[in-house]
């Protein structure tokens, strides 16, 4: 039975319920806040989700809980906010109506200079404080990866972040006290209807369920499917592309499940990086630190692993490790499904094996073999919140000192995420030794002829990639030599 259709988006904004029937598919939350609501505490710094000046909180129901996450309002579409709670800087206050503990800590620590980035920092620290009232420096830095400050050098902001709990009790925070009520209001907004607004060049659909989504995409195979909008948002802000009709799938709970499945992990296409992080790290430890280096916290809260794959970027960070692990992809069109090896999905630059009306439903990631070694190394100009120059993923089994199997894949080295087949061949059956590594390094040029661009030269990409194999060798052989630099011991 088809879902009922609603012609308006409904969400909570700070304390009020907002009902909008005049939403266009490319309306962005930041513009809505600033231009339509005159909530101008939220700033635009880059309009590409990289600086964090526009950070707001979005609360959503996830597995029955109301979860607040930071997002970049500059690339978040209004159409994706149905049944969400948007919290802006204007909503924050302390218990006695003065400054909120996060705000007071920043003031007292001299944490603002020009102040333009400050509301974004406040929201990022607030989201962290809600979850971890007494975070470590490593955790604070991670929470701030998506917030740029050009004035302070961050030291006073760090001092403030460490001190927040001395200014107030996270348990007595207004949002915490109102949580039950807010949750009830959001549940009320979730009426099981499909949202459809507009027509022609200005049309958006928020499907009621995955079934509904599958039907909608068959009916409109040219539609732009938007999950986290960390990529599509920039099509609008930077390329000014028309993206209508848009199907927003960020609210589909069925796509947001991550489960153990057939000696591996099944990741629904709508699972965000943040949602997946702990689950992945518990089962495949090397993936935890990798996820921590994808975007900033805001982007990890919005962006999905499904989207990272579906877009087919040659510099997506999840495909190389998933290919190395032998992941497979489930694609769905209507009620038809097919399952393909992930590495076969990437056909050429910008071209994927996805048919009209078809969407990525899930990815299945087998665990590495129990006697196997698995590692992922990302190289970028700046360690955090940077796009990959080169990324290598290694899945190798050593038996009796000999390489029994090897699956190695790289990102940033070709037009697609790509296996290093010549390198694998040079390793398999050979003793796992520095000599073998050196010999395998010689064949990298067969597998990869990388480009020179603003992130790195071809020469550097190739050299560093070769050296990652040596790093992997050192890591697997338990050398006493330090072979990796760390800011903090990885948790």
């Amino acid at each position, binding site marked *: 039975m088809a879902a009922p259709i609603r012609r308006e988006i409904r969400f909570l904004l700070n304390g009020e319920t907002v009902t909008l029937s005049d939403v266009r598919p490319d309306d962005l939350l930041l513009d809505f806040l600033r231009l339509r609501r005159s909530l101008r505490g939220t700033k635009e710094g880059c309009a590409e989700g990289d600086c964090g000046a526009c950070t707001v909180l979005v609360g959503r129901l996830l597995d029955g809980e109301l979860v607040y996450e930071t997002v970049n309002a500059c690339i978040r579409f209004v159409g994706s906010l149905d049944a969400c709670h948007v919290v802006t800087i204007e909503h924050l206050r302390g218990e006695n109506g003065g400054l909120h503990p996060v705000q007071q800590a920043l003031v007292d620590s001299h944490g603002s200079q020009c102040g333009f980035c400050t509301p974004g920092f406040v929201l990022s620290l607030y989201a962290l404080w809600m979850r971890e009232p007494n975070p470590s420096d490593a955790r604070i830095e991670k929470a701030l990866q998506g917030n740029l400050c050009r004035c302070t050098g961050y030291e006073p902001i760090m001092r403030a972040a460490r001190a927040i709990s001395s200014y107030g009790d996270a348990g007595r925070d207004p949002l915490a006290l109102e949580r039950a009520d807010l949750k009830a209001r959001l549940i009320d907004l979730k009426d099981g209807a499909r949202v459809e607004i507009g027509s022609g060049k200005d049309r958006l659909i928020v499907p009621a369920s995955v079934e509904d989504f599958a039907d909608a995409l068959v009916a409109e195979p040219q539609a732009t499917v938007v999950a986290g909008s960390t990529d599509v948002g920039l099509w609008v802000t930077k390329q000014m592309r028309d993206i209508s009709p848009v199907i927003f799938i960020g609210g589909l709970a069925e796509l947001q499940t991550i489960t153990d499945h057939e000696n591996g992990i099944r990741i629904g296409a709508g699972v965000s990086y943040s949602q997946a992080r702990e689950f992945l790290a518990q089962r495949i430890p090397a993936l935890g630190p990798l996820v921590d280096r994808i975007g900033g916290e805001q982007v990890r809260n919005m962006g999905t692993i499904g989207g990272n794959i579906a877009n087919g970027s040659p510099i997506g960070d999840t495909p190389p490790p998933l290919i190395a692990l032998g992941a497979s992809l489930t694609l769905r069109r209507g009620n038809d499904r097919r399952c393909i090896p992930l590495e076969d999905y990437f056909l050429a630059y910008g071209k994927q094996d996805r048919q009209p009306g078809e969407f990525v439903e899930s990815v299945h990631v087998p665990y590495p073999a129990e006697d196997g070694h698995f590692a992922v190394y990302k190289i970028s100009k700046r360690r955090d919140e940077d796009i990959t120059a080169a990324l290598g993923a290694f899945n190798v089994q050593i038996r009796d000192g000999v390489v029994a199997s090897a699956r190695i894949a790289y990102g940033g080295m070709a037009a697609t995420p790509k296996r290093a087949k010549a390198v694998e061949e040079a390793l398999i059956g050979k003793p796992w030794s520095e000599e073998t590594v050196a010999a395998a390094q010689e064949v990298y040029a067969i597998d990869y002829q990388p480009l020179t661009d603003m992130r790195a030269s071809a020469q550097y990409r190739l050299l560093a990639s070769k050296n990652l194999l040596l790093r992997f060798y050192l890591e697997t052989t338990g050398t006493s030599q330090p*072979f990796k630099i760390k800011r903090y011991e990885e948790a």
Partner: protein
Amino acid sequence: MGNHPVQDLKAARIKGGVHTSERHDSAHKHVSGAAIYIDDIAEPAGTLHAGLGFSTVAHGVIKSMDLSEVRRAPGVVTVLTAQDVPGVNDISPSGMNDDPILADGKVEFHGQPIFCVIAETRHQARRAARLARVEYEELPGVIDIWDLDAESHKQVFTPLTLKRGDAPEAIAKAPRRVKGRMRLGGQDHFYLEGQISLAVPGEDDEVTVYCSTQGPSETQHMIAQALGVASHAVTVEIRRMGGGFGGKETQANQTAVLAAIAAKKLGRPVKLRLDRDEDMMATGKRHDFAIDYDIGFDDEGRILGVDYTFALRAGFSADLSGPVGDRALFHCDNTYFFPHVVAKSALLKTNTVSNTAFRGFGGPQGMVGAERVIEEVAFAVGKDPLEIRKLNFYDPMGSEGERNVTPYHQKVEDCIIQQIVAELEEKADYAGRRREIAAFNANSRYIKRGLALTPVKFGISFTKTESNQAGALVHVYADGSVHMNHGGTEMGQGLHLKVAQVVAEEFQIDLDRVRITATTTGKVPNTSPTAASSGADLNGMAAQNAARQIKKRLIDFAADKFGVPHEQVVFLPNRVRVGNQEIPFNEIVRLAYMSRVQLSAAGFYKTPKIHWDRSAGKGHAFYYFAYGAACSEVSVDTLTGEYVLERTDILHDVGRSLNPAIDLGQIEGGFIQGAGWLTTEELVWDDKGRLRTHGPSTYKIPLASDRPKIFNVALTDWSQAYEPTIHRSKAVGEPPLPLGISVLHALSDAVASVCDHKVCPRLDAPATPERVLMTIERLKAEAGR
């Protein structure tokens, strides 16, 4: 600042006087989103929005420009081209008339504005701008400077030569000699708030422009020139910027002028805010340099002569490239005495955006050159670079020595670098860590550590003499509250707070009695841009002067009214002692008003002592110098070139700080910005002249996780300005930025360890992981040879 704060009439000290760590006056507004930036001002009804069309070639002649589709696009009201400029189509700050507001016939860089669309919404304006059909006859373009001949290539402004002694001869006769070349990258300001202006038309020829500018007076004059009206018709106002760093000294003028032209043409308010990518593409940056050096020295490492050429990428026009090149030369000595020196600038014209002021204004680039010279000498004689640094320092303040004259013939009278470096060496345990690192490296094949301690000496004053003046306007209202205004602008550095502290100190009233107000050309005219670290020095003095005028009138009045000698009228905290009685400040003010005493004054200041003869290359260019030093340690992965900044210790001189908390913030922030410049901030242009790093996704400024793991920053608690500056404080905006050079040299030290410090790494900047790895590879190859 509350409306009716309670004042303590028995206080021993006022709240918020000078030398106290007051919080930023706007901090509570920053954190609550209540601080209003230009884009946050409630737009007047009918406000229109502008968007720009940009050149898509680096150099060419516009053959045709079809804007018909732009004009037909939804919401478009009008399109401006060069022909729509009523006055002069130029915003050159150098007098070279080479900076068109909108390109007229020829384009000289990729991203140059060629037309301006005005529409009902910003989205409509930006979208419409993409519909233009422009045909170019492309001309050959010059993008990079590395291979240019500095002697023969076209320059945008007259270069400078500094000369003292006979460097060629000293070098030729020196026991040792090294020549080399260094590439030093530029830097985008990446102020979080991009360029923006809102112009509101007034009566007759009047217009008010709210502009995120560091130089409201210059913006005002540029608008007047472009509109063809007198300056008195134009008012420019700025309450605060979301960061400036030099990027809004001249670069703010373009949005201001275009918004003003459109507003006057249409009779409606017009706002122009650049998108981040547009901002990075179309506005100038820190100059990148190619630095040539030829050094003569003795076997001990004492420098005998240096011959430098500092070639910079000016971009297509002069802008501030002349003075930036000058300041590079003024700092090519850093803290070192060169017995013989010749240093030339070359201001090379390229088909790239015109480079401009950026915190340090060429000074940091000059100092990077000086530190490369030190490093070369140290490697040549096989000593720790710190030893070579100390061997070549200027003589300390008060010594009778002769080693105290700069390449521009100014005597260094206030040198305190010896004491700073000695203290920092001790606090940072330089010697102990040097040994530990050597031991670590000897046993570590892949990870190498590096350490460096680098000094800073930064000259304070505009070298353009007329810029060293400032004005202020202070009103005392009849209720005893004070309204303070001056010509400086607030970009986050706490200038308004410092000046308010000066005024509070002068009247001996609590800081919350002093109201900070927006900078406007209507209150204080003919101001200098807030630049050259001079904001508090100049405006603090001007405000003090204004306050003293009023104070003198109050003293005269009180002495007269109560019949006591003038010296018996004393300003105590929140009160005035007149003879034997103490009268609240408010009450004295009320009485003075009743007696018709003028309670408003315009203050003024000009820096004494300074003079500069550019053609002779001689003068007393700087009123004084600010000093500092930083010690940084890094770990480098020699397999990938990745690195971590392990620790930095800083000791920095701000004289007697007006506000220690604010100054520490400037030092921490300046250091990180300097470190970013020399490490991950890389500007990349392709061979077509397109900037490939035009947003934060591709241009990487430091994050919280890039700051040193251990970061100890301190002010020298013993220094005070040698000259009678405002309360003996020193400038702090720019001098800390080159403390970041310590990171470059720590990386260089780590890199050098791959061949046992036998070869000078010549690590260029920015030292991205790629450049670090490639330098390691080169060293290994050279050492193996």
